[in-house]
């Protein structure tokens, strides 16, 4: 009973649910603010994503006449719920470790795919040609980046498992515990290829500029989100905010968990999130142009895949 209660709390309060939502939206606001400063503008207030969300709540949701209503309105809900569970699956070093019954790294990787799938479903359910275009682009991109990320995560799991004397471990709690006792993987040259592969996967999964091809505003008019308005669009915003938290804190858990406990662990984690958001998202998205879908596909099948394979091979050889 108490484990169920703690799990529920983890999903809806901390670190999932409300906390992650506020955190994700604040990170987005920080991103927009810093982006504006880097471009020499003043930029919106930090709470702008919250304003946007409240505003969307007041707008009317329009469902296209030809769209399938249950799928059209259900898709964002599925995305938000999957992300809520995913946040509860990522442990925070020295602060929170999920119930092993809730799931492990493999479940998390599955859940990380759900937002992309949800966007694809939403795009095709809207029956808009732009949505269909977004669908095909999202699918192509997902096919390209899924393999490198799975291999990169596999390398981390192998390294931890072999370090612990076993073969492989898919428990993020174990991975963090191993790094806390042996030093973080960020400083371990053996793990650098995996880190590079993960760093390349990260903008693609968050859908920021070099790889925001499925939702390109200027090409396919925000693609799958084209037909969404009002609260349904707000749910998508919530989903992407939660996703940013999940992917960022997964990166932190895999490569750079801080060896602090309690309140310092929380502060350190928040600082890490903010710094990663600025370096990994803001600077990247401001300094690059959007790739074409064939360029992005070729890119992901070249460098990240090579890096990921290299990382698995080196980890096996070193161990």
């Amino acid at each position: 009973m108490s484990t169920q209660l703690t799990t529920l709390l983890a999903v809806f309060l901390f670190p999932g649910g409300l906390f992650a939502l506020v955190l994700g939206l604040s990170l987005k606001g920080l991103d927009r603010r810093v982006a504006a400063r880097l471009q020499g503008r003043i930029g919106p207030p930090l709470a702008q994503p919250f304003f946007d969300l409240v505003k969307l709540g007041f707008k009317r949701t329009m469902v296209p006449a030809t769209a399938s209503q249950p799928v059209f309105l259900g898709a964002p809900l599925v995305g938000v719920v999957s992300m809520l569970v995913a946040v509860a699956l990522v442990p925070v070093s020295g602060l929170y470790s999920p119930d092993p019954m809730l799931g492990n790294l493999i479940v998390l990787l599955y859940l990380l795919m759900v937002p992309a799938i949800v966007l694809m479903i939403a795009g095709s359910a809207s029956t808009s040609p732009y949505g269909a275009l977004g669908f095909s682009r999202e699918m192509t991109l997902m096919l390209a980046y899924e393999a490198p990320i799975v291999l990169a995560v596999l390398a981390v799991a192998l390294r931890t498992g072999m370090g612990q004397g076993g073969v492989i471990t898919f428990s993020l709690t174990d991975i963090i515990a191993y790094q806390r006792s042996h030093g973080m993987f960020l400083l371990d040259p053996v793990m650098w290829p995996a880190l590079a592969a993960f760093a390349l996967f990260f903008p693609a999964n968050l859908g920021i500029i070099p790889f925001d091809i499925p939702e390109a505003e200027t090409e396919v008019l925000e693609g799958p989100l084209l037909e969404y308005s009002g609260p349904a669009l707000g749910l998508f915003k919530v989903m992407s905010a939660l996703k940013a938290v999940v992917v960022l804190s997964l990166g932190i858990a895999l490569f750079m968990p801080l060896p602090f406990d309690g309140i310092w662990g929380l502060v350190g984690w928040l600082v890490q999130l903010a710094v990663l958001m600025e370096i990994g998202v803001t600077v990247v998205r401001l300094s690059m142009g959007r790739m074409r879908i064939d360029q992005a596909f070729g890119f992901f099948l070249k460098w990240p895949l090579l890096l990921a394979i290299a990382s698995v091979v080196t980890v096996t050889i070193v161990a």
Partner: protein
Amino acid sequence: MNMIPDFKSIATKSPWIYRINAGSCNGCDVEMATTALIPRYDIERLGCQYCGSPRHADIVLISGPLTTKVMQAALVVFNEIPDPKVTVAVGVCPISGGIFRESYSVKAPIDQYFPVDVNVPGCPPRPQAIIEGVAKAIEIWRERM
């Protein structure tokens, strides 16, 4: 129940802007792009954001004298925008026709077909004038929400 006016005043801090080019010469469009994109004017500071899809829009900026060919398309796009919305006519062309008035291929003034709320005259209006018009539109939008 008392929370709702507060939320409404929060909501008006996030007006998303959509542009309809109803046969404009692009002068006004350049000024609108300038208003949004150039650091000097930075409309994002007011929470505004240009959006690609009419479904996301709150404030519609219409430029151009509404040529006969583009009229049907412009009306279709306009009806896609969910309520509550505010319409702003940018430049003299949509307001009165400007130098294109009484041309056989022009349907201006557009307030015969669109419920225009705010007019921003000028050929083209300077970016500050557009910001002023948007500020007026936000006031109207607040009443309408």
